[in-house]
């Protein structure tokens, strides 16, 4: 599987990702620095104090000069600069830590999405045109029509408000996040909210492609051979039915990354998405640039991961 061609392909893709990251951060850097006013606009600083701050952030230099020093610091030292609002906070360690938090939540959501989606899809296909199928099909339309923040809201209402009130506070569910990485008890609710809309899509696709596959001749052969129904379903049918499903993995991963921006803000998860929204609202432009750079890298790497996964699942694909 890890042939020379594959390794070469990975290398090429990594170089491409590097270029994309530089391009994206450049666009954001130049775009943000063209905005009228400066980052210290809100603070009523005058005179030398103001001059000193401008000088500290290099904002008194010409744009081109700032840009080249930003690029060289980023590329050669991985240094994304210093927060404009919280003075002295270095951005690189901050966003890297937040990236790992976001990836943690995203991975949980992804596992949940694929697991639940496939399970529902297979069940619906095996019970085609029964009430089970109809209930699951309708649920999946409802599922992908409910934005993740609506699902998150209802989960909070259910677990943190109604159940709490109903049991007079015996059942108390803390919404929020203790520590950097949370606990299993805290993570499943955001993961559910984040993954549910996509689980519906996975379920629909799995159902459709399962229906196609279970009518194939080789399934009949397997059945004639006397194999158990569960073996046929899992090893023969599901494996081939998965191939159309994995084609949406790419959009799905991107969807989970962007959906994370909302869900992190609702559940108070200290990840990249929360930082992104906060930094935009705070006009902490240096962090905006840093977060965007991280997102560009994350999306590139996630796409690469998905493409490599195709090779694992479908042996016909070679790079």
């Amino acid at each position, binding site marked *: 599987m890890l042939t020379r061609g594959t390794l070469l392909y990975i290398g090429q893709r990594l170089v491409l990702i590097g270029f994309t990251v530089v391009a994206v951060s450049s666009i954001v850097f130049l775009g943000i620095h063209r905005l009228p006013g400066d980052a210290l606009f809100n603070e009523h600083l005058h005179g030398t104090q103001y001059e000193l701050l401008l000088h500290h952030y290099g904002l008194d230099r010409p744009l081109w000069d700032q840009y080249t020093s930003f690029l060289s610091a980023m590329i050669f030292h991985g240094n994304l600069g210093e927060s404009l609002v919280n003075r002295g906070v270095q951005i690189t360690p901050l966003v890297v830590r937040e990236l790992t938090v976001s990836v943690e939540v995203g991975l949980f959501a992804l596992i949940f999405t694929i697991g639940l989606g496939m399970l529902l899809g297979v069940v619906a296909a095996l019970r085609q045109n029964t009430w089970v199928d109809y209930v699951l099909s309708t649920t999946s339309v409802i599922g992908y029509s409910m934005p993740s*923040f609506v699902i998150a809201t209802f989960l909070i209402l259910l677990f943190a408000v109604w159940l709490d009130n109903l049991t007079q506070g015996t059942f108390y569910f803390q919404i929020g996040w203790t520590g950097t990485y949370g606990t299993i008890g805290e993570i499943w609710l955001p993961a559910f909210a984040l993954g549910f809309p996509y689980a519906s899509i996975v379920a629909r696709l799995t159902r459709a492609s399962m229906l196609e596959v279970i009518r194939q001749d080789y399934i009949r052969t397997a059945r004639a051979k006397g194999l158990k129904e569960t073996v046929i379903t899992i090893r023969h049918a599901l494996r081939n039915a998965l191939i159309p499903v994995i084609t949406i993995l790419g959009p799905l991963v*991107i969807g989970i990354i962007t959906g994370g*921006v909302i869900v992190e*803000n609702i559940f108070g998860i200290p990840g990249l998405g929360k930082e992104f929204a906060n930094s935009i*609202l705070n006009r902490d432009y240096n962090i*905006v640039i840093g977060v965007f750079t991280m997102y560009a890298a994350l*999306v590139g790497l996630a796409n690469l991961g998905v493409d490599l996964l195709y090779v694992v699942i479908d042996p016909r694909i070679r790079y």
Partner: protein
Amino acid sequence: MAATAAAVITRPIAPEQASLWSDAWRRLRRNRMALISAVYLTLLVVVAIVAIFKTPYSYREVGVALPYSGPSAAHWFGADILGRDVFSRLLVGAQISLIVGVGTQVLVLLVGVPIGLIAGYYRGAVDSIVTFIINVFYGIPDLLVAMILLLLLGPSLNNIIIAIVATRWMDMTRLVRGQTLALREREFIEAARASGAKPLKILFGHILPNALGPIIVQATFGVPAAILFEAFLSFLGIGVQPPTPSWGSMASDGLAAIRIAPHMVIAPSIALSLTLMAFNFLGDGLRDALDPRSRR
């Protein structure tokens, strides 16, 4: 007797006349969910238009009810943090959602269809460039691009629409390009070319009408996507700015008061979900109706 016989004979023996559209309409009518959705959406549009002229209370007037007060006969969906009537704000929010949803799709059609037609018809270098740009846009998460665009342009309804179009135009372009690539090889296009039709006439007179079905379906699915997008942006506080209500920003306000006034978050959430669901059911119905082969 003779007269009726003559009448029978003179009546043209017409074959079952069914154009694509009447056929599609017949199939759509049989889809109950799509029909219910269409009725709901028509109602929503009417309500939104009426709300331009008259709402029960002004959407921006504070203190018409007790802050956080729950649903009552005077205020159907209660009041929000400033004592504004949630029902009236919901109606104005419907306007915003519909303007964003329909507005973006009109712009997406205006941008995406011509580019897709040209790329698919001329192929070659033009197509390569367009495909490359499409792939670049697909590579970056749309929500982040929209957020950066809004940051650079400043939040306003027009800029929200621009930001959504900038992140969604390529869906339509890709679809139209694919349709054009397939259609341009068909005999009737060749016939049109042979009879000396100008490229513009071929593109908009022959190819576009034949690709209309999938385009309509795509646009129908594009509307809820855009509405959801606007809700996301407003939820994060960088979309529609107060005091103008948007379902997203109303839900965001409500989330802050979820323990004391859950109606504040429930009302916009349900309105949003119902509307998105209706558009999705309608899109499903339209797809089945316009392309019966895709039905499983």
